[in-house]
């Protein structure tokens, strides 16, 4: 798509809002956080759309922003968690760390709710690239070619990432069921 053929920002928002929100939700697993980050994605789209050169498709460009903003949010949250842990060591009252509640994706079929919650919890433990490939494939339903464009990798690299992500998830689930341990 040539830059001069770009739709208006309202049209872009209507077309891509669900895709962006769904992708971000897959990473952040919290509706409030996902809405905040979705806003950041579209603010960035608005800010940068005049510089869009059309080297990739509009869809790929927007997905890329969504992936980067999601990963940035996770990194920022992890930094805050580490700081909170360190400060709790010196806190006389002693801060109690609670596990996050299970995440229930609103688009999952009802009978799969509990299984999906366990899967999302396990996805959280994947390395970044495997997590991205898995979310874009299984949560967003993108094909290998589009995932490769978003991640700027070859299709064979995406296939390899998905294979390793699946192996990793199966291993972690196997350990979980053997021990029936809580995360």
């Amino acid at each position: 798509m040539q830059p001069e053929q770009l739709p208006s920002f309202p049209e872009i928002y209507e077309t891509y809002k669900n895709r962006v929100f769904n992708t971000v939700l897959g990473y952040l697993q919290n509706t409030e956080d996902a809405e905040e980050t979705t806003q950041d994605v579209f603010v960035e789209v608005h800010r940068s759309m005049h510089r869009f050169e059309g080297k990739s498709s509009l869809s790929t460009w927007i997905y890329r922003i969504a992936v980067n903003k999601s990963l940035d949010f996770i990194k920022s949250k992890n930094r805050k968690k580490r700081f909170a842990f360190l400060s709790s060591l010196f806190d006389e009252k002693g801060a109690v760390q609670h596990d996050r509640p299970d995440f229930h994706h609103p688009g999952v079929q009802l009978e799969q709710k509990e299984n999906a919650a366990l899967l999302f919890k396990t996805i959280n433990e994947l390395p970044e690239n495997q997590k991205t490939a898995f979310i874009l494939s299984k949560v967003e339903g993108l094909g290998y070619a589009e995932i490769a464009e978003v991640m700027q990798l070859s299709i064979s690299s995406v296939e390899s990432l998905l294979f390793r992500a699946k192996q990793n998830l199966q291993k972690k689930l196997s350990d979980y069921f053997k021990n029936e341990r809580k995360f």
Partner: protein
Amino acid sequence: MSNEKRIDEVMSSLEGIRKAEPNPFLYTRIMNKVEAAQSEYTPARIVWLAAASFALLVLLNLTAIRSLSSKESASNSDFKSVASSYNLMNDNSINYN
């Protein structure tokens, strides 16, 4: 149920997943953020003007400082020549004559 079967069930739990939809008020919030960002934006022309003014100020100050120090050394050498012509310079020798 075997663990392998449970694993397979979990791994396929996202099949048929529908896309989640965001809050309908999200667009309004986005436009508020966009407008807030635009009102903070300082045009490049003003930034360059401020930078040029600052550079001019520094240059003027440096020139003034240089001019001041050269005047001081000039007045210092005038003082020395007057003092020596009247034998008022301290040459560390005491003349008891």
